[in-house]
């Protein structure tokens, strides 16, 4: 068999109805819980809604980042399943809708929105040129617009290529990705500062954007890994994807597990060591009362378990381990966001009840629904991509 004569024997296989139904079902269930939650305790519901918003941002924006990186680096191994990332990035479109309830409840969540408090607080007053509702609204709107615009530009080029196989579309996407990277870095950083860091408006850390980024990429790769392996096992891709592709996914997960731990540890260590009260209180909030268990739980769930789970070479290409670890890491990312958001809602102890269980269902249902809806509209392999053959032939 010569390399020039390999034909990609890809014929699209439709998703079973069960997936669509599961998506709708979970989404509807989550929605009902969310509505009831807003009627029982709208503040707590809004904080949970924020976690869902940031989780979906992670998946959508992280997936778009992975697509951009593939084009920029000229990577080939990820080409056969780039469509999975493109579909996940579509989550960006629904973000503004998820953000609306949070936005409407900001007065009960963000200290800096109270003009009477800001007027008497010297530090908040000095931040007012940045932390005010007008500027906040403009920023968030611009971020959403940019993300959705880049999503449409990059993925539509990719889809056009299915028919024409035109190589210049790849060149065009490389250029778009190059422009997207700085946009991504800036918007992700300030989105995380606006939505998450400003929950504690007195607190600050230059690492915050990088911290959120590390979780973002992890969540996107984990979601992708789970879907890719599931689909490959059930024959949704052309033949040829094998353990080496799995290994690449596992190695990426492992690398970013370490990256997250490195960033989290450095941020903590530097504040612990210098011991300045204006910086340490944020960590003290997460180390007092029952929050200490949440902090320890986070370290174990987000680092220790996946680290040892993916450390050995065989485990990085074992589909069973990878599927489990991918779901585990998604759970860990929710725990991480919970740990970032919830101490603002309840300093006394970890709030854990039906709301905290219910809102993630909404997120999962939404991702599956978006996936199933878009799946119907496109090929699940970029059949016109010039790098596709090389991607399928990828060997370590």
């Amino acid at each position, binding site marked *: 068999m010569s*390399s020039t004569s390999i034909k990609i024997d890809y014929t699209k296989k439709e998703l079973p109805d069960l997936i669509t139904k599961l998506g709708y079902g979970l989404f509807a269930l989550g929605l009902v819980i969310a509505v009831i939650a807003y009627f029982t305790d709208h503040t707590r519901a809004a904080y949970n809604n924020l976690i869902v918003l940031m989780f979906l941002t992670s998946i959508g924006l992280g997936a778009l980042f992975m697509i951009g990186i593939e084009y920029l680096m000229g990577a080939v191994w990820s080409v056969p399943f780039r469509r999975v990332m493109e579909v996940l990035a579509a989550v960006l479109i629904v973000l503004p809708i998820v953000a609306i309830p949070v936005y409407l409840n900001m007065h009960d969540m963000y200290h800096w929105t109270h003009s009477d408090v800001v007027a008497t607080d010297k530090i908040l007053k000095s931040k007012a040129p940045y932390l005010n509702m007008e500027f906040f609204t403009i920023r968030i709107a611009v971020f959403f617009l940019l993300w959705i615009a880049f999503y449409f530009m990059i993925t539509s080029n990719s889809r056009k290529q299915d028919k024409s196989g035109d190589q210049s579309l790849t060149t065009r996407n490389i250029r778009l990705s190059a422009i997207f990277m700085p946009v991504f870095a800036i918007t992700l950083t300030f989105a995380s500062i606006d939505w998450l860091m400003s929950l504690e408006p007195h607190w*600050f850390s*230059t690492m915050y954007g990088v911290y959120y980024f590390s979780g973002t990429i992890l969540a996107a790769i984990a979601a992708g890994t789970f879907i890719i392996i599931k689909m490959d096992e059930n024959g949704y891709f052309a033949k040829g994807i094998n353990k080496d592709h799995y290994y690449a996914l596992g190695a990426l997960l492992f690398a970013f597990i370490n990256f997250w731990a*490195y960033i989290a540890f450095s941020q903590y260590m530097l504040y612990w060591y210098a011991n300045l009260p204006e910086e340490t209180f944020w960590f003290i909030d997460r180390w007092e009362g029952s929050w200490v268990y949440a902090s320890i739980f986070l370290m174990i769930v987000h680092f220790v378990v996946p680290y040892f789970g993916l450390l050995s070479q065989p485990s990085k290409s074992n589909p069973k381990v990878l599927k489990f670890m991918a779901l585990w890491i998604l759970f860990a990312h929710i725990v991480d966001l919970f740990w970032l958001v919830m101490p603002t809602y309840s300093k006394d102890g970890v709030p854990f009840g039906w709301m905290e269980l219910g809102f993630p269902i909404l997120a999962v249902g939404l991702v599956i629904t978006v996936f199933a809806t878009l799946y119907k509209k496109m090929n699940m392999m970029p059949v016109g991509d010039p790098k596709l053959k090389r991607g399928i032939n990828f060997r370590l």
Partner: protein
Amino acid sequence: MSAVDYSQELSVVEGKPSLRSIDDVIIKPLESKPDKKFYIALAVTVSMLGIGAISLALSFYYGTGLWGNNNPVGWGLPIVNFVFWVGIGHAGTLISAILFLFRQKWRTGIARFAEGMTIFAVITALIFPAIHIGRPWLPLYLLPYPNQHSLWPNFISPLLWDVFAVSTYFTVSLIFWYVGLIPDFATLRDKTTNKIKKLIYSVFSMGWRHSNRHWQHYEMVYLILAGFATPLVLSVHTIVSYDFAVSIMPGWHTTIFPPYFVAGAVFSGFAMVQNVLIFIRKIFNFEHIITLNTLEKMNKIIILTGSLVGYAYAMEFFIAWYSGVQPEQFAFMNRLFGPYAWAYWIMVSCNVIFPQLFWFKKIRRHIPAMFIIGVLVNVGMWFERFVITVTSLSRDFLPSSWAYYKPTLTDAGILIGSFGLFFTLLLLFTKTLPVVSIAEVKAVNDDAQPSHGGH
């Protein structure tokens, strides 16, 4: 729109050279007598080294009063130079270990040389903390061993972590380098006709016979060492950044320091490797092994790391304002418009602005242009360490003690000497060891590996 064919993989080695010609071209510098140009270059670097040696001798004789270090700037050029040289070393390990783990084939042509530069850069760097303590007979006490004076190192200090981090890093880098050299020593042993050389090469090749089993062990050791070296290289500059960031000095105490220092180190290291390789590939006729495509990829890494450094500058600045902490805000305004504003603006233009020219393909592939940008990057990165170290200290918490730090001639002499040492070691390296891995280049030559789908 574009002439690039994305469906084909670019070859790492151009022109499909025969295996024999790869041997010959890489070994040639070792077998031939050094020419005039080599001696001229060596004379220059040894003279620079001499200037450094004289400056050091004077410092030992008269004391560290010959340096510019004084209150409030206790950390002057010695720390700046230390951080600079440790940073230069980072590219080597990134290329040899991290890119190896990523299976980047283009690293093969440049890995050996970059690893060599790592080792020489760390040797150069280690001079500075040794002399900066002023009592060079005391560092022995940095090792935790029970002694009559009941002296025990202060494990809470990041300066001590540095000792362990840098020495571990150096050891692993050296072993990594040596393991990579073993197959090449065997090739040299088999080729040489000189008896003394044969003896030396035989000892160092440790009985290597290029057998299948040897290669299997070699590959495994190489992989494990790459796995070790990767966290080590990240830890070294992370801990160097802790030296600054754990203190409460405004401008130093900021959480983004660890990844920012690592990115900056890789940035300057790549610029240095790129600069030196431009000469090496020309002088030794390695243009088909260290190709223009390889240089272009290095330039891409320079633009990536340069942008990360730019991001860190911006974040520091924004958070200094956002934090509302006055000393922090002052420290940054002082950097921009204070007495050291000239250094700050050199740093920003060289590190953030000029490397952005690499977005243009023409500049990325234009050798004189990339050389100049590479030099500018290193100027900028040296000034980055200068700005961080000096601006914060020269205007500390007590305005009455503020002072303008000025390096002295002796400081400059030691800095020149460090470049002399580094380049002298590099020159000697090019004449004693194969600067490109013979075995690895053969493995990435076209048709060297059976590929899926066959040929």
